[in-house]
């Protein structure tokens, strides 16, 4: 045979890098990403914690006040309102999940042109929230808006959704649900694609039909899609900012603020000069999110362990 002549002696002395190639390479590859991420994400999180302990207008000297900002938050009505609104967002935004599932079921057919339909239904997700906000703001206009016009058709008086402190938040959430539902729809469409057809057939032989099939067989199998939809919806709900800023600017009289908006207002807006206070709000928001992050990482950790 044709054997390549390999030296029978010990191999030539290899450089440090060569000897440690497998150990070192990942860190070389990770370095730029970690650097960027640390500088712009990780360190700022801790900085925010630290800033939240100061009274600082962003211009002059910062004054250390310990937990003063947090103490003030406890009595801040606007903060309370924001917190409640965040809760509303969290709860109502989840409606995107069943709504997305519903549309996905509706569209999960193979008729001519269905691909176009699917992509058009998905369309709202691609739009900027700024545009979505504008569009819905016009939709809600108290007199001229399409909503009022449609209500008038069925004999109901005009309604000022965004001007009504009780309705405004829900109005904005509805606007947010539009793209979010589209997102969940896509997740479910791919989820439905992955449902084992043999299981559906087995269930049909078992006599499961319609709702029963959906409930007992399909939805349990869509669990991964549901999980993802849940995660992105929660994140979306807690990050909601653009829509509020565009549609009501927090109003009327601050009733549609959420934490993320309130902190922007406190820290960076026209009259806001309270970096420390804003940071404290951000920290609270972060702590809320931490619950979900922890949950997410935990389930991912479980999967990693289970998967190997």
């Amino acid at each position, binding site marked *: 045979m044709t054997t390549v002549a390999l030296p029978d002696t010990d191999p030539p002395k290899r450089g440090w890098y060569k000897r440690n190639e497998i150990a070192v390479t990942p860190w070389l590859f990770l370095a730029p990403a970690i650097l960027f991420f640390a500088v712009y994400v990780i360190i*700022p*999180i801790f900085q925010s914690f630290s800033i939240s302990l100061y009274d600082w207008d962003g211009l002059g000297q910062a004054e250390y006040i310990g937990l003063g900002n947090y103490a003030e938050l406890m009595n801040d009505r606007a903060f309370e309102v924001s917190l409640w609104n965040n809760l509303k967002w969290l709860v109502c935004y989840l409606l995107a999940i069943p709504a997305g599932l519903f549309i996905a079921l509706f569209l999960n057919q193979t*008729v001519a042109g*269905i691909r176009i339909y699917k992509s*058009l239904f998905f369309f709202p997700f691609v739009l900027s929230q700024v*545009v979505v906000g504008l569009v819905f703001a016009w*939709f809600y206009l108290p007199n001229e808006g399409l909503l009022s016009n449609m209500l008038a058709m069925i004999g109901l008086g005009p309604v000022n959704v965004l001007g009504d402190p009780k309705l405004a938040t829900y109005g904005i959430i509805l606007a947010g649900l539009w793209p979010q539902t589209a997102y969940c729809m896509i997740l479910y469409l791919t989820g439905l694609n992955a449902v084992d057809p043999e299981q559906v057939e087995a269930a049909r032989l078992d006599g499961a039909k319609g709702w029963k099939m959906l409930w007992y067989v399909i939805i349990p199998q869509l669990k991964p899609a549901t999980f993802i939809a849940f995660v992105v919806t929660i994140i979306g709900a807690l990050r909601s900012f653009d829509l509020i800023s565009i549609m009501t600017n927090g109003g009327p009289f601050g009733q549609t603020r959420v934490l993320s908006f309130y902190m922007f207002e406190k820290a960076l807006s026209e009259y806001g000069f309270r970096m420390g206070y804003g940071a404290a709000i951000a920290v609270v928001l972060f702590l809320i999110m931490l619950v979900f992050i922890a949950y997410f990482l935990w389930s991912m950790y479980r999967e990693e362990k289970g998967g190997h």
Partner: protein
Amino acid sequence: MFPRPIQQASAPAQTAYKTMLPIALILWLLPLIAVAVFSIKPASDFTQGNYWGMPGSFEFVNNYGQVFFNSDMPRYMLNSVLITVPTVIGAVALSAMAGFALGVYNFRSNIWVFFMFVAGNFVPFQILMVPVRDLTLDLGLYNTKTGLVLFHIAFQTGFCTLFMRNFIRALPFPLIEAARVEGVAEWRIFWFVVLPLMKPALAALAVLIFTFIWNDYFWAIVLTQGPDAQPVTAGITSFNAQYRAAYHLMSAGSIVAALPPVLMFFLMQKHFIAGLTLGAVK
């Protein structure tokens, strides 16, 4: 397949379904259709209260001409491009490397580094606002496209790394082992073996990040000001401030601003959806 293929249903049910489809679509896209119609209406329609009727006249050229030649919109659009494209390249490059490191090597802190990226990706980004703004100011990058790009790259890297790492994990590992047995250096494995295999993921991510960044509003207003550096999402609001209540122009402007990601979506639909479902997080 669930629900049951409509082909197996009765003929009336099939017809009903096929007529429902366009109706549902129109209802679903009603707000958007309204904007599209707004954007070709004359100003007089709005002063006369004809908000939702047929356009009084067809003002496509006028309205869009106004947007393109008589406002800062083109500049904002250009800014958006100059912000979005480098961000996409940067984030994808960084995360491809990081994803490779995390997906291929089993060093001890692997999962913790990975979790750092994941967790960072999920933080409410408001918590970064004050420090990042200060950092950008300190770097002298406030109100520059570079400042915005650097931040976006960093923040998106979290998400992209999650995505890339999972993708690489799903690649058959023997491919890498085969290359190792053949004496291919690690970085060459990345370049010649892994990267070509990641093409679908790269495409999906690029499309996805493109839309995310194009549509970003929050950071645009935190880190930039004015038509020098602001992207179109922020531009549209000042455009609107300028044309308060001129719904036809605002609509035209909004549509122009929304167009690139929409085009991107339609051209790269397959990648886009793959991206969403693979990465599965925004």
